[in-house]
């Protein structure tokens, strides 16, 4: 539990998001193109972080289904940015596997079939912004 609390803090730090701002309108899930393939839906991600249930998030299928299209980030009326939270959880998982901080220039060399595609897509999107 304690470590999950720490992880939740880490997620907030990485994403720069305050999940308490969420008013649970569901617009993120309404807007998500990968909704059907997700086990934990985007709006639920926010609640999971709020409730510090990180374990389940790290194991979720959704984590690698999110396209990082950031439609939810654009549309969220409360500036909660669920996409960033998902991205943060992904980073968390990856870091625990010792795949620390990546810079876009390093990626081609480091390209390793073990690294999930989504992470790369997400990283590219993130750095493009």
């Amino acid at each position, binding site marked *: 539990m304690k470590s999950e609390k720490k992880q939740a803090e880490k997620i907030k730090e990485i994403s720069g998001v305050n999940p308490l701002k969420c008013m649970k*309108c*569901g*617009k993120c*899930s*309404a807007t998500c193109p990968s*909704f059907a393939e997700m086990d934990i839906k985007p709006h*639920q991600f926010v609640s999971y972080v709020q409730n510090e249930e990180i374990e389940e998030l790290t194991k979720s299928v959704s984590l690698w289904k999110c396209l990082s299209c950031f439609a939810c980030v654009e549309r969220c*009326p*409360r500036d909660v940015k669920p996409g960033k939270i998902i991205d943060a959880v992904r980073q968390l998982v990856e870091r625990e596997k010792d795949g620390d901080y990546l810079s876009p220039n390093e990626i081609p060399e480091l390209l390793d079939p073990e690294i999930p595609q989504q992470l790369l897509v997400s990283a590219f999107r993130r750095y493009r912004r």
Partner: protein
Amino acid sequence: MQRIGVFVCHCGSNIAATVDVKKVVEMAMCEPGVVHAEDYPYMCSEAGQAKIQAAIKEKNLGGVVVCSCSPRMHENTFRKAAEKAGLNPYMVEIANIREHCSWIHKNMEEATEKAVILMKAAVAKVNLNTPLQAGESRVTKRALVIGGGIAGIQTALDIAEAGYPVDIVEKTPSIGGRMSQLDKTFPTLDCSACILTPKMVEANAHPNINIYTYSEVEKVSGFVGDFTVDIRKKARSVDMSKCTGCGVCQEKCPNKKTPNEFNRGLNNRSAIYTPFAQAIPNVPVIDREHCTKFLTGKCGICAKVCQAGAVDYEQQDEIITEKYGAIVVATGFNMINLDKYDEYAYSQSKDVITSLELERIMNAAGPTKGHLERLSDGKAPKEMVFIQCVGSRCADKRGKSYCSKICCMYTAKHAMLIRDKYPDVNVTVFYIDVRTPGKNFDEFYRRAVEEYGVNYIKGQVGKVIPQPDGKLLVQGSDLLSNKQILKEADMVVLAAAIEPEPGVRNIATMLTASIDTNDFLTEAHAKLRPVESPTAGIFLSGVCQGPKDIPETVSQAGAAAVKAIGLLAKDKLTTNPCTAKADELMCNGCSQCANVCPYGAISYETKLINDHGVREDRRVAVVNSALCQGCGACTVTCPSGAMDLQGFSNRQILAEVDAICR
């Protein structure tokens, strides 16, 4: 040096639990000038005030310091109490040891130390207080209401009924406001026009009410009880006294291509027009920006067909200057601009409309004569989707942070009316929360669901995608079943957030009334003075103060009227004696102070001055204490310190600074 009494309030345990009040009393007795100090559980109580009064008399006190709650709370209470005991009320100072001390600190030692310092600062200040006399100013027994919607009309009627003349200034060609655009009203489903029109007629006919339509407030000067207002009566191009309201000019006008504002631009109107059939006054206006005569010089048909000879192309704007004792702001609201909400396809599809547009569509006098139809192809919709909270409760810059309050109810109303009139139309409402506090409100909403079969889905819509076949694909969440819903709709109605009428910022500036970050006018106290502006003599009616529905607006309008009547009923007002004053011996007459005075309260006179035996004519500043509001801008501009603010003098503030830094 004054003989000072210090009174320390426990405020029950509010203060005493954190501040050692006995210690404050003990320390007070050590301060120079303090001849009396005591504490009491509730200083503001009758018994507490009696203690202050007794001490003033027995100890012959010249100054009083009350260590208690914020002066914004009880300064007046204690001043009045002191006055009753024969002390000038301005010899009382408050040390705020509750809001600024006991409530924010937890450590008793720390809080007590701070309370003692605050007490010392107040004692240091009161030592330099001088008795001040409140002046008097006359009250002009006439009120101005800015805005002629239901709020303005109701306020004006109430004031007029009390026997005071009222002027209404309305920007558009007719009074009536937003309510005149509505079809039915919740929760009773009354016809809006049916209940509004009699009020409009009554206002128009009332001997005490004078209506300036197509007019705007241009300049406001003066102060409570004595405002002088310039009203710009825009050129109507039609002589109000001659026009019979026959309407021929509008029929014959060849230019019928102007978007009809009243119908939210859903259809067009003529260049000479009355906004709607029941308009008051029933006198048309020529829209000079669209009139062929004004654009090209050729036409003049309306003048030719007008049998009364009322059309006057030469008419000019007119400035009317009038004096008022009170001003009520009732400027109302508008819907926010939805251009930034691409995801709902508002600007892409004609069939995505706002609720107010739906009102016009449903209205018999509207663009579709009351038939529910798609604006794109005129077909009757089968599937309708309502989206709530569009732009309300938003943390981003596109929308508003607040709840617009009326949308839940009017959406239920619309859904119910559609289901009632067109039972074959399916209605779906996407909501985040359904907010229905209000008499018979929740029952109304439940009826929509239970009796009319409106489909309420908890979840927001992510996007609306116009399809090639003209349908609208709505993609939304159903949070309760944790599903993403794709729904084809014929029409989508957006419950757009409401915002204060954009002109209110300008009006607030003229009135020196404060507005909040959302441009709603600020009330003097959120709970205790909700219909007054902090600026004396300015009252708030309707949505200009915050979102509200019709019944709430009408009750606030009445409340604002009562406050205005209360002011107008007085013959004289006592003025704030904490005004600026120039020391003639020190004044340079340099005019810098007049340059910064927001009230034009400073003028210059050439006077014969006797400066310690040197007699000479000097140009010196003179403050009109009736105009001065006591901001103190002049005092800092004055390099010699000749200008000082009574009640907040340089020496008093410096004494507080010294006491705090001791």
